[in-house]
């Protein structure tokens, strides 16, 4: 027992020392004079090493003037990063530059935690339209990002050949809903346990992201253009029709509702609706030949694909706006955009960067390039986006399990409109 006592005294002492160290460190932070300190937050992930490199290069070039420090915040598989931002916002401890997923721009801008960056971005005309659109709230630019993303239809070349199906090679020939449905039906083989299509039923942001184009392509929408009302949009006839179409896939068992994480890669599904990053993963499976084709379009509507990736904004607590702009532009130079895009084979968000990547002009990556440059559509811009995304995601899950489409979407509209009202 004496041991325990000694141990705890030692512990008590060490605790004291540690907290003392902590305060010392804080004192140092303001240390060197004349140098502007900038902090950045980015979600921890594959991109972290590339960002680390870019920031240290920035610090070298601005030695004695600006010193930037980037912190990578774990994101978990849901909203841990956003929760962290919320906690920081509520206690005024936000960093100077803040990365955010595209649809959060409106939410953050409206709450006043990020500031407009109009006129701060160099060579703004080089950025692809969808990035600028995504970063704009009430006619002011709040955020830009170095990379884009999209969702396309990945397929197992051999399985499609065996079924006698030729997937479209050009944007003009992209499958319509019916063609996609027919292909999925033909490829499904219940005896062998093979599904026509695989799509992930993630609980986070994914659902609104991957189903969005089906809705937009049909002329539907999620919310009024100015973000003021969801009723009549998210539950409007065109949106309902789009989800009824997707529901036929789950109703008829063309999609597995409980797939393994590698169902498509293991040859248990013939096609997969997935983000552009899937291409990098398929490289782990070199024995199978993979292809990519366009996101299917509504028979009456236009070709649309989803877009949006993480973007950078300047927080309202950033004091030195010029230094922040300098750093923002440094991240988005053509060279750095190329460097960041290369990490996960992501489409770059600058067209001059795109022009340098010959691989993206060839099959199958040209499909992704076409979508980013020609058919990209950002997710809705509304201050109530978190409610919309969450409630819509839950509703779509119910719909896939056989729920009534109109009824489920009516509930979403009601929840979102309550939230909009609360914020006024």
């Amino acid at each position, binding site marked *: *027992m004496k041991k*325990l006592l000694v*141990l*705890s005294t030692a*512990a*008590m002492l060490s*605790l004291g020392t*540690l*907290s003392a160290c*902590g*305060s010392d460190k*804080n004192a140092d932070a303001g240390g060197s004079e004349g140098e502007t300190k900038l902090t950045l*937050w980015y*979600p*921890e*992930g*594959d991109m*972290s*090493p590339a960002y680390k490199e870019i920031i240290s290069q920035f610090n070298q070039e601005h030695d004695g003037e600006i010193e930037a420090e980037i*912190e*990578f*915040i*774990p*994101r*978990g*598989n849901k909203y*841990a990063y956003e*929760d*962290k931002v919320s*906690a920081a916002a*509520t*206690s005024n*401890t936000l960093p100077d530059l803040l990365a955010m997923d595209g649809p959060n721009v409106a939410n953050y801008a409206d709450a006043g935690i990020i500031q407009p960056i109009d006129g701060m971005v160099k060579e703004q005309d080089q950025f692809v339209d969808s990035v600028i659109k995504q970063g704009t709230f009430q006619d002011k630019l709040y955020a830009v990002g170095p990379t884009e993303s999209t969702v396309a239809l990945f397929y197992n070349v051999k399985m499609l050949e065996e079924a006698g199906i030729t997937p479209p090679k050009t944007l003009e020939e992209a499958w319509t809903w019916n063609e996609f449905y027919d292909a999925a039906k033909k490829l499904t083989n219940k005896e062998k346990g093979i599904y026509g299509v695989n799509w992930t039923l993630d609980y986070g942001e994914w659902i609104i992201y991957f189903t969005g184009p089906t809705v937009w392509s049909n002329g539907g929408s999620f919310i009024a253009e100015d973000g003021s009302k969801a009723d009549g949009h998210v539950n409007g006839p065109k949106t309902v029709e789009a989800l009824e179409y997707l529901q036929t896939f789950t109703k008829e068992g063309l999609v597995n509702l409980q797939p*393994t*994480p*590698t*169902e498509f*890669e*293991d040859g248990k599904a013939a096609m997969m609706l997935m*983000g552009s*990053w*899937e291409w*990098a*993963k398929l490289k*782990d*499976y070199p024995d199978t030949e993979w292809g990519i084709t366009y996101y299917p379009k509504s028979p009456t509507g236009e070709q649309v694909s989803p877009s949006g990736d993480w973007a950078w904004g300047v927080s309202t607590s950033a004091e030195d706006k010029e230094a922040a702009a300098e750093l923002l532009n440094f991240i988005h130079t053509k060279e750095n955009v190329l460097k960041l895009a290369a990490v*996960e084979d992501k489409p770059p968000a600058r067209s001059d960067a795109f022009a340098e990547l010959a691989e993206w002009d060839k099959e199958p990556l040209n499909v992704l390039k076409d979508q980013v440059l020609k058919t990209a559509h950002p997710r809705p811009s509304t201050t109530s986006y978190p409610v919309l995304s969450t409630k819509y995601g839950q509703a779509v899950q119910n719909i896939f399990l056989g729920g009534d489409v109109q009824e489920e979407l009516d509930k979403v509209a009601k929840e979102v409109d309550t939230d909009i009202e609360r914020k006024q």
Partner: protein
Amino acid sequence: MRHQTKQKIGKTVTTLAILLLGFLFIAPLLWMIVASLKPETLIFKDMGIAAFLPKDMTLDNYIQILFSDRANFFHYMWNSLFSVSMIVIFGLIVNSLCAYALVKLKFPGSDFILIVIIALYVVPFESMLIPLYIVVNNFGWINEYPALIVPFIASAFNIFLFRQFFMGIPKELEEAAMLDGANPWQTFWKVVVPNSKPVFATAAILTFVSHWSDFMWPLIVATDESIRTVQVGIQYLFTDNNIEYGQIMAALSLTTIPVILIFVFFQRYYVQGITSSGVKG
């Protein structure tokens, strides 16, 4: 002779029951370890019995985790071990003393305090996250160890647990100590503590386990790489668009080891019937 055979059969039946039932409980842990030793492409290929059988064993996943340039696994592990051990050590002292005071050294208001403490256990942590963050931020503890430790030392659950067990300690024991001239502190230290080893062990294990898996709070208060805990530190594995399940399983296997060790360590304090021998002596 007959009695002995009967006992033997009884023991065999008990052992079999423990092992059979035990498998149902430990299966996920086994699966996790087996999966962590497989190449990525094999993990979900067959989810039947094959999922529990090693195939093409490799340590690649472990090497990736331990020597990653993305994360300093050893350092995160140390941070977790340090902060959780502090919670356990201080917690055992502070909470057991408080429970002892409330049960055995009744003072004015002690009954009321007990009710408040039980009521506090009701509060779900999720509802306190933001207010607690504001309090801790006022102390200037963000990104410092005390934020991970100090708020969790006093625990309503542990005080309640100790109280319940201290109630069961026979009065005669304390009276005997008192007659020997011991003061309340000595009574606590020499009579109550030695006679309550199982409950101290239980409190230690349960506290360690529940804080070892903490994720949300450490994430919010400890962004800085230098004090990041292991549960937060391995989150990068879940974030990538292309999740590598083998590495996840390897990391989770490694983080489970300390908990199992703590459990085994405290097990030896589960000894039978000290209370009664104490009475006799």
